[in-house]
């Protein structure tokens, strides 16, 4: 990568977004190269949408900077930014046809009417929507509206494409198709794409890199696989379905902040995370024999059907979640309030530095 100044890359996105809004404070750094698809993943209220609005110029920055392809955009009004946005509920102009919705951007950028409409027709064609060019938004299905919104955002050739919960407004079946299709379009997009979602599956399918945001801060970033294997917060762990604990390692033994010790196969020292999947947990009515080193007593607080498994929530020495077969639950006679022992084999735990 060549750079005119040591700190500012000439291509891609380099942003430090600070938004102070009475009680809520967003402060996150975001960098991406052209062709990258970055997902901002986080629970509701984490500040993802605020970050997106700040990138689009719809919410002013309180501090920080926003650099796109070497140009400072902070202070530039939204209409002058080379940014395209796909809004959560698409916000297609209801009084315009699909074609005129897509032609709106090029028209605003000074393209003559006929050329803009030809350009828009081309985009709709690419999205497989040539037949719906004359339809008003209310006559489009959710999936079609999503593609029109994407075409509309792309028709101005943005250098930064922003997508706010792009699949949230769709029903489960359409979602599957649209997700695959959106992935194709994003993969083909040559500039930076940033999408916001609270759905880990959407994030992992669509993005090359995840930025997990909680409480207005980046808590973890990396590739989807990396984040799924090494979650660093309870939120991420529960998203990817892992039991996660923090503690201090001394060799194979980790003293957890929650109290008990856990034995792992990794040999580490210092602060660590320990994670294990719910399926690695075995439950017993009586105290297991001494060969199991990771054994804790607890009480069942909840039983819930989870696919063909039953998910069991435990409190006690070590709060955890276990997945059991229906047969095992019946055999053990488990019920809410029952006292049980939980064991986990060291080989099925995974420790990594915090």
């Amino acid at each position, binding site marked *: 990568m060549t750079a005119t100044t040591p700190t500012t890359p000439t291509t891609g996105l380099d942003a430090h977004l600070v938004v102070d809004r009475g009680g809520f404070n967003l402060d996150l750094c975001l960098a991406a190269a052209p062709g990258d698809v970055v997902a901002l993943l986080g629970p509701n209220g984490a500040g993802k949408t605020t970050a997106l609005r700040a990138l*689009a*110029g*719809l919410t002013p920055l309180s501090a920080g900077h926003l650099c796109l392809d070497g140009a400072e955009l902070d202070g530039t*009004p*939204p*209409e*002058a*930014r080379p*940014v*395209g*946005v796909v*809004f959560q509920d698409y*916000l297609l*102009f*209801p*009084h315009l046809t699909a074609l005129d919705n897509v032609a*709106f*951007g090029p028209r*605003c*950028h000074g393209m003559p009417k006929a050329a803009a409409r030809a350009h828009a027709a081309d985009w709709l064609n690419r999205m497989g929507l040539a037949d719906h060019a004359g339809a008003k938004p209310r006559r489009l299905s959710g999936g079609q509206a999503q593609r029109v919104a994407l075409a*509309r*955002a792309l028709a*101005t050739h943005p250098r930064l494409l922003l997508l706010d919960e792009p699949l949230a407004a769709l029903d489960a079946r359409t979602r599957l198709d649209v997700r695959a299709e959106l992935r194709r379009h994003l993969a083909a997009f040559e500039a930076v794409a940033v999408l916001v979602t609270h759905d880990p599956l959407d994030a992992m399918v669509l993005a090359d890199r995840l930025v997990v945001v909680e409480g207005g801060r980046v808590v973890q970033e990396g590739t989807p696989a990396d984040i799924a294997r090494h979650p660093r917060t309870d939120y991420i762990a529960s998203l990817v379905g892992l039991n996660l604990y923090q503690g201090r390692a001394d060799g194979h033994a980790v003293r957890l902040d929650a109290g008990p010790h856990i034995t792992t196969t990794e040999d580490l020292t210092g602060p660590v995370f320990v994670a294990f999947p719910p399926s690695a947990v075995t439950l017993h009515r009586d105290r297991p024999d001494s060969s199991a080193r990771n054994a804790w007593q607890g009480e069942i607080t909840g039983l819930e059907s989870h696919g063909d498994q039953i998910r069991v929530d435990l409190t006690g020495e070590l709060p955890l979640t276990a997945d059991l077969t229906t047969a095992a639950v019946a055999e053990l006679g488990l019920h809410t309030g029952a006292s049980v022992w939980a064991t986990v084999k060291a080989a099925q735990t995974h420790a990594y530095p915090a």
Partner: protein
Amino acid sequence: MKPVTAEVVESRPRSRARGRGRGRGRAPLPLLLPALLGLAFLLVPLVALLVRAPWRSLPQQLTSTEVWQALRLSLVCATAATAVSLVLGVPLAWLLARTSFPGRRMVRALVTLPLVLPPVVGGVALLLALGRNGVVGRWLDSAFGITLPFTTAGVVVAEAFVAMPFLVISVEGTLRAADARYEEAAATLGASRFTAFRRVTLPLIAPGVAAGAVLAWARALGEFGATITFAGNFPGRTQTMPLSVYLALQSDPAAAIALSLVLLAVSIAVLAGLRDRWMAAP
């Protein structure tokens, strides 16, 4: 929209119903009696107008030159006043709904003042502002030779002064109800605020603007006090229908009734045009 509202209105008493139900029970006399009296009070004058109308001589009355003159002048002035209200009032409504500036609430209150101000007072105020010796009128007269009082343009000014607040309030309400995020979407597509207003907001609020315009037009058509005070009562120049009715009542009551019928017909047409918007409200 209308059938939905009707359903809601109907189903509400039913869902609350206990025994005979609130919607269907007999109304208590202390409420029923004044209610019926009130209804009669509102309807009887209109019926009287129809009963006493000189139906036989009506065609002749309505084709007289004076009636046509007054009707034509009324329609032209009311339409011009509505046009003025649209050109000035829609941007004013946008300013009130979409921007924040110090004293915005105060400005909004001042805009609505002509709604409650006695029209005659409005006429006096207009004279003091735009009269030949008025605060602005003196300057208009000396710099441009423009005189507004007692001219047809003066009628338009008086009517616009009284009618514009109706339009501003109506359009402001529609703007507030409209989703401002469409304007944000337009901005991200490269539209300036004015382009977004022209190509997105205005088409979206068009029904509200139309309703406001009809309301303003009806108000302008019936305007009496401000008009007679500011523009006078010159047949063919400033004598609009309401003025003509008032004057005719003293010399030729049959003509006054005929003119009133025309205005009644116009009012009913306006109400019919707006029924979806206002009559549907429960």
